[in-house]
C-alpha cells in the first residue's frame, strides 16, 4: 500500500507526527497520575505548571514532589530509555543482518552489571564513581573487549555475535563470582533488583545526561537511514551501492553502544525492548529505516512508559523490576508477531 507512494505525503506525515506526540503525552499523563498515590489529572497539570514554569498554583508539597520530582522524571526517563533501546535494536538488526540481534548482544548489559557490582560490593571507585559510573565503565569495557574479539576474528556479522556472546558470558560469570563469594544476602538482593532494571532512582540530573545522548544518537542514526537500507543484501551489496561500509559500521556500532551504555548505567539492564519493538515497528511501517527509526523511538517510548506504570500497579504495595514486566508482556507479543508474520513457504 505505502510502497507505491514515492513523493512525501505531507498530510499523512503530519498526522502521524501529531498522533505520536498525542500518544506520548497521554502515556506521560497516565504515568504521572497512576501510582500508589492516585493524583487527579488536574492536580498533576498544576504541579507540572509549577515545576516547569513556576506558575504558583496551590498544590500540596507532597503532591508537587511526587508529580514533578518523582513521576515526571521517571516517565520521561522511561520514554528515552525505551526509544534508545528500540533504535539500537533496529540498527543492530540491520547491520548484523540478524533478526535476533539486540543491544545486549554486544555485551553492554553484562559489562554494566560487572561494573555495578564492582562498585556496589567491592567498593571500587569509592564514592566518586557511583553505581551508574561503575555500570558505564563496565559496559564500555565489555564493548571494547567484544569489538577487539570481533575485529580479530574477521569482523563478519556472525563473528560479532559470537564475540558478543563470549564477552557476555565472561562478564556475567565475573558478576556471579563476585556476588556469590563476597555479597551479603542484602547486597545480592540489591544487585538482582538493579540487574532487572529499575526506574525508581531516576531524578532530573539523570535526564540532563540521557536526553542529549538520546537526541544526538537518534540524529546520527537517522542520517544513516539510507545506508542502513542498503545493508539488506549484505555488506558487499552495500559497498557496491556507494556506502562506506567500514565507516558506517563503526559510527553506528559506537552510537548504539553509547546509547545502550548510558541507559543501562542509569536504569539497569532492561531486556526485550531492543529486540521486540523493532520487529513490531517493522510490522507497522515496513523495513525502510527513514520510517522505522522514528517509529521505534515513539513505540519504544510509549511501550516503556506503559510497562513502567504496570510495574508500579501490578503488585500492590510493591514495585516489580521493569525487566520482568517487559519480558512478561514482550515475550507473548513477540510470539504473536512471529506467528502473524509467518511467511508463505
Amino acid at each position: 500500500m505505502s510502497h507505491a507512494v514515492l513523493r512525501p505525503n505531507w498530510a499523512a506525515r503530519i498526522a502521524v507526527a501529531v498522533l505520536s506526540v498525542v500518544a506520548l503525552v497521554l502515556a506521560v499523563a497516565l504515568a504521572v497520575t497512576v501510582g500508589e498515590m492516585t493524583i487527579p489529572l488536574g492536580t498533576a497539570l498544576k504541579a507540572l505548571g509549577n515545576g516547569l514554569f513556576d506558575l504558583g498554583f496551590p498544590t500540596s508539597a507532597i503532591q508537587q514532589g511526587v508529580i514533578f520530582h518523582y513521576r515526571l522524571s521517571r516517565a520521561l526517563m522511561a520514554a528515552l530509555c525505551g526509544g534508545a533501546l528500540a533504535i539500537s535494536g533496529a540498527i543492530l538488526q540491520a547491520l548484523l543482518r540478524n533478526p535476533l540481534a539486540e543491544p545486549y548482544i554486544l555485551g553492554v548489559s553484562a559489562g554494566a552489571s560487572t561494573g555495578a557490582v564492582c562498585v556496589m560490593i567491592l567498593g571500587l571507585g569509592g564514592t566518586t564513581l557511583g553505581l551508574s559510573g561503575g555500570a558505564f565503565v563496565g559496559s564500555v569495557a565489555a564493548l571494547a573487549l567484544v569489538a577487539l574479539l570481533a575485529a580479530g576474528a574477521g569482523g563478519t556479522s556472525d563473528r560479532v555475535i559470537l564475540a558478543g556472546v563470549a564477552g557476555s558470558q565472561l562478564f556475567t560469570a565475573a558478576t556471579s563470582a563476585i556476588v556469590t563469594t563476597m555479597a551479603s544476602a542484602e547486597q545480592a538482593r540489591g544487585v538482582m533488583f538493579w540487574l532487572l532494571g529499575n526506574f525508581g532512582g531516576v531524578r532530573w540530573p539523570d535526564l540532563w545526561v540521557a536526553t542529549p545522548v538520546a537526541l544526538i544518537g537518534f540524529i546520527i542514526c537517522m542520517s544513516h537511514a539510507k545506508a542502513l537500507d542498503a545493508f539488506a543484501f549484505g555488506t558487499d551489496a552495500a559497498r557496491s551501492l556507494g556506502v562506506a561500509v567500514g565507516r558506517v559500521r563503526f559510527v553506528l556500532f559506537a552510537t548504539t553502544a553509547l546509547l545502550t551504555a548510558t541507559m543501562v548505567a542509569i536504569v539497569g539492564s532492561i531486556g526485550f525492548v531492543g529486540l521486540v519493538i523493532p520487529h513490531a515497528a517493522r510490522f507497522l511501517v515496513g523495513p525502510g529505516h527513514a520510517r522505522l527509526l522514528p517509529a521505534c523511538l515513539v513505540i519504544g517510548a510509549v511501550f516503556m512508559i506503559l510497562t513502567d506504570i504496570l510495574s508500579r500497579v501490578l503488585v500492590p504495595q510493591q514495585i516489580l523490576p521493569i525487566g520482568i514486566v517487559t519480558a512478561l508482556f514482550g515475550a507473548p507479543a513477540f510470539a504473536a508477531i512471529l506467528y502473524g508474520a509467518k511467511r508463505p513457504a
Partner: protein
Amino acid sequence: MTLATHDVRWSAGGHLIVDGITLSVEPNRMLGLIGPNGSGKSSLLRLLCRMRKVASGVVTLDARDIGDLSRRDLARRLAFVEQQATTDVHLSVCDVVRLGRTPHRAAFASWTREDEEAIDHALERVGLTDRHDQPWHTLSGGERQRVHIARALAQEPRELILDEPTNHLDIQHQLSTLALIRRLGLTCIVALHDLNLASLFCDRICVLSAGKLVAAGMPEAVLTPDLIRRVFGVEVRIHDGAGGRRHIEYIIDGDQGETP
C-alpha cells in the same frame, strides 16, 4: 577502453588469488570472464568494483585510478550484480530497485521525480513493471536476478559487472538473462561458467587459470580445444553453428570421437 586493470594482484590467507592480470573492456561491449572454480574470476570482479583493495597494480576507469574516486561517485558510474544475493528483510520488488538510487541521494533527501523515473525505467528495461509491488521472497530465481539487474540499472551506470548471473537458473532463464544484459548496451564484464553461453553472448572473452590471464580475444579465437584442455582439463569438439557462432561439445571419458 573504459574499465581496465594493470598488473593487478590480490591475495587472501597467504594465497595469491589474482596474479598480475592486465585486461580492459571496450565501451558498450560485453566481456566474458571464464575459468575453472577458484581461478580468481569472482575476486577479479570484486577488485574491478573496488569491493576489495588491490595488493599491487591499479584498476582504472577512464584512465583514472578507481582508488581516487569516492565510493559514492564510483557507484553512480559502475554497478555490480552479485551471485545469488538474497535477504531476510521483507522488501518489495520496488524497494529493492530503489536501493539503486542510494548513491544518488543525500542523507536526508526525499524522493525526486528523477529517482522515480530511474526506478520505473529500470523495471521496464528488465520487463518487471507489473511486479512493482510483489514481495521479494515470492520471486523465482530468474526474477530475482532481473530485479538485481534493475537495481543496478537504477544506479544509472555506464559499466555493469555481473558475477555468474546465470547460476542456478534453468536454460530458458539463462538465455533470457544474458540476452537482456546484452540488450542493455552497457559496458559489461560478466563471469560465466558455461562456455557455450560465453561464446554466444560475449564480444570478447578472457580466460583465467590459477589467478593468471591465459588468453583473451574473440570467442572463436580463444575457445579452442587446446586451450579448453589446458585450462579445464576437458576434451571438446567444436562445431560451427548458425550465425558464425560456434558450439562446444564435451567429450566424456572413453568417448574417443574424431576431432575436426
